[in-house]
């Protein structure tokens, strides 16, 4: 029993790392543009396919192609922004959420249909020679290498993002825009450009998460919405304002789900996650690590 609990906790933590990366991207687009892109999970899915085909067709290792996948989905992000979200950010902040929900739900359907058409509905997993290898601790706890990458990359992504936002002039411009776009434009910041880049980085992070999903788990055209929902839970748990808080909350959610599936059965893991979510929401509505505002 103890072995099972520890093993489930470890597996939960590792998947929690990916929750963290997906949530980082979603928090960035939500915090800066004030749009809620529910098609964020579809970008995870597309990133997953990108890594899968780079591996199966060209033999490129999914961990090494992470920067390449980031760039591809980043580019897709600039296209989606220019075609769709550019028109949403013209409205006042209150209207943006509603309109972005409508648009991105439509995008969910379109991207899923395209994925089924191009890639079929089959589950795809990247099988490398290290896929079945694991670090075995104290004789019985297995930490699979391929899945550990998720947590490691999440932590790296959070630190890079915090560095960008806190230490660079462009990052300060992003935070300024997030806090008050009118004041940002009066400061000489090209708010539209900040929006596009922030959205593209958000998309790129979803792509990175996708690489890790297809390496450690599997991708199919319909996985998107599940990841979006997990990311939303993580963001509410963590609160906006701290990137490492988001990764920590992601890991925490994974851990709770892992433990719940041992004690209550895996059917209840989603329920327990939502209960934790409600409890945190009732006692700390600003989130566990949030600063209380709705900006990054």
């Amino acid at each position, binding site marked *: 029993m103890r072995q099972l609990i520890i093993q489930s906790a470890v597996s939960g933590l590792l998947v929690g790392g990916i929750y963290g990366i997906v949530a980082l991207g979603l928090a960035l687009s939500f915090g800066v543009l004030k749009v809620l892109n529910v098609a964020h999970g579809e970008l995870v899915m597309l990133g997953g396919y990108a890594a899968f085909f780079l591996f199966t067709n060209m033999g490129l290792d999914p961990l090494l192609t992470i920067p390449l996948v980031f760039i591809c989905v980043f580019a897709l992000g600039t296209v989606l922004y220019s075609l769709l979200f550019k028109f949403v950010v013209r409205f006042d902040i209150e209207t943006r959420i509603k309109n972005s929900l409508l648009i991105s739900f439509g995008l969910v359907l379109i991207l899923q249909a395209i994925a089924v058409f191009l890639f079929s509905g089959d589950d795809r997993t990247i099988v490398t020679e290290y896929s079945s290898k694991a670090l075995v601790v104290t004789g019985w706890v297995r930490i699979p290498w391929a899945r550990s990458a998720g947590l490691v990359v999440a932590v790296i992504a959070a630190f890079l993002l915090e560095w960008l936002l806190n230490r660079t002039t462009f990052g300060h411009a992003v935070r300024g825009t997030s806090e008050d776009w009118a004041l940002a434009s009066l*400061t000489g910041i090209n708010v539209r450009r900040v929006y596009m880049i922030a959205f593209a980085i958000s998309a790129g992070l979803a792509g990175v998460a996708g690489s890790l999903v297809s390496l450690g788990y599997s991708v199919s055209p319909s996985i998107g919405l599940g990841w979006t929902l997990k990311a939303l839970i993580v963001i509410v748990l963590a609160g906006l304002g701290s990137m490492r808080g988001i990764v920590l909350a992601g890991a925490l959610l994974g851990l709770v789900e892992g433990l719940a599936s041992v004690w209550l059965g895996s059917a209840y893991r989603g329920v327990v996650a939502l209960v934790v979510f409600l409890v945190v929401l009732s006692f700390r509505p600003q989130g566990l690590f949030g600063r209380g505002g709705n900006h990054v």
Partner: protein
Amino acid sequence: MLKVENLGAGYGDLQVVWDVSFEVPAGALVAIIGSNGAGKTTTLRALMNLVPAMAGTIEFKGESIVGVPTHQIVERGLIMIPESRATFASLSVADNLALGAYTKRARRDRQTTLTDVYEIFPRLAERKSQLAGTLSGGERQMLAIGKALMARPEMLVLDEPSLGLAPIIVENTFDEIRAIRDRGVSVLMVEQHVEATLELVDYAYVLELGHVVIEGPSSDLMTDPRVREAYLSLQ
């Protein structure tokens, strides 16, 4: 420096500024005064293209800036300090000042301007690493002005700089505005504190219900019976 003719502006279908014309010569200190809802803030927002100008022309340094994106107007040297919330609460004092010099033209001189600003407001140097949101009202006003100076303005526009400040701090702020003008920056300010403003500025426009109703050198306005009755509450 700035020439506005027959400006109309508003929000959606609601027009609140009608046919407003005014001028700020180079090096001048000019005010637009009027009560709440007269359209003062909307006029300034239209100037910076935060709301679209529905009619009229706006010329800055002889070139039209109608339809020019806000950040490019800032790049041209026209800087506005909005009323209240003129600093980024979640950024430190130093980061706010650094962002103030975000434009290409200001970025080159960022370090020297920063030294100047810290000299003018030593308090800001003391609070360098403090978040702007935790400053007092007076300190935040200093930061707002310091941030605007970082942008190296050729012309500075202030929207109700006295709003929500204690009288002594309003006095300091007005002194600072005078000092900025003395450094060669043209200044346009919008105010409800009519008496103190008329003592400060060279020329003023009185705005009522979106129209300019009176204009003239401030010394003339101070003795104008209509201004005295409506704004100075003197017999």
